[in-house]
């Protein structure tokens, strides 16, 4: 698919915005299904605790990016919408990172009590 604004303009129409050609839809859909199979399959391999998690997340992110770019038209959309979306993800990550940073630091105090109180 070309990057140009006219990617889908092989049809005769005057719709606002971009019209996605059916071939592309099916291609993306097929790839997504394929990646789903891949991620299930790859879990069976032992890549270590983090290894498997990273692989699974990378595949999920590829899938998510495809959904955003093609199904959600971000590729042909005003870039601002992508900015909105990206910033929401940025803030969620900040939230998770900082909360996790703190929680993992004091988790020891919780374990200490579990130990002492024989829970």
């Amino acid at each position: 698919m070309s990057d140009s604004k006219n990617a889908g303009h092989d049809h005769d129409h005057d719709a606002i915005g971009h019209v996605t050609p059916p071939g592309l839809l099916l291609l993306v859909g097929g790839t997504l299904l394929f990646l789903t199979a891949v991620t299930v399959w790859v879990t069976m391999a032992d890549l270590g605790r983090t290894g498997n998690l990273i692989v699974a997340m990378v595949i999920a992110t590829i899938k998510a990016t495809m959904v955003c770019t093609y199904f959600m038209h971000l590729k042909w959309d005003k870039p601002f919408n992508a900015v909105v979306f990206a910033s929401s993800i940025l803030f969620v990550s900040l939230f998770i990172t900082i909360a996790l940073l703190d929680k993992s630091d004091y988790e020891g105090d919780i374990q200490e009590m579990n130990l002492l109180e024989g829970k």
Partner: protein
Amino acid sequence: MTHSLVNSLVTFLAAAETNDPERFTPKVPESDHFWVPNEASTMAGTVDSLFNYIMWVSVISVILIFAAMAYFCIKYRAKDRESNQAALSQVDHSNALEITWSVAPFFFLISIFVWGFKDFVTLYTAPKNSIEIYATGQKWKWTFKYPNGFVDSELHVPKDKNVRILIKSVDVIHSLYLPEFRAKMDAVPGRYTDLWFNATKAGVFPIYCTEYCGKQHSDMLSQVTVHEGNGYEEWLVAKEKEIELLPPAELGQRMYKQFGCAACHTLDGSKNTGPTFKGVFGRVETLSTGQQVKVDENYIRNSIMEPQKDIVQGFPPQMPSFKGQLSDKKIDGIIAFLKTVQ
């Protein structure tokens, strides 16, 4: 709320509600400072200096702002609407000024931050050789367990020694606050938190609970006594002896106060969070299961150790367990005491 508001208005008008004589109120010793309480720990001085530093920075900035504002209001006051149209000067930017007033506060802020950070790390890093005292928060009292196992509702510490308090809570979040030591830490259920101090002034200072914990949050008070010399050790020994020598009923009464039973159980027959102790011994209670039981020694013992097992009808299952906190002797004392409250 509306309902109890009406009730309270009625009681208020009848002037029936008076200050609860059972409520423990510590005394705050007169402070040498206007803004802060006495400085009674090694950290108090530096925290206060920082407080004063920020205070002066703040007071000066606020006064400057106010002065500029007042001056401009007077100096540039328009006479009336007709004679004053748009102001003559329409100056609307100056990058030099903007940079100055962004950068100038920055230096103050950095200095304050660094100072505060250093103190904070000291405040929460207990020295290795500290005396460890366990504090437990529960609705609505503090208990302190000393290294020798003695448990008291008040905190006693030696002067000029590092004391580390390990804090936990058995129900909701509380917060142990020792204003004179500039120390505070939440008591969080499910984990330990801690604070430490080194008291520098002998005397008696208040202890508060500063995390909202329900109805009697504001009555969750105690006090800390700072002993000079070996006063602390002597106090501990004396305390244990004293208690063992008490006649059972008196011991029980002590426990009633010390373990905060008073917060929920009255002696005068009125209903509080828990059933009154007046005439409790020998009373026939209906449990939430509908079962009827007669209150005897065993029942009381069970109620204290495993309060959630039998719940008296009409009361919430709010009573904490005192397992491990009360020795047999003390429980016997409580039973003896309850027998006397008829």
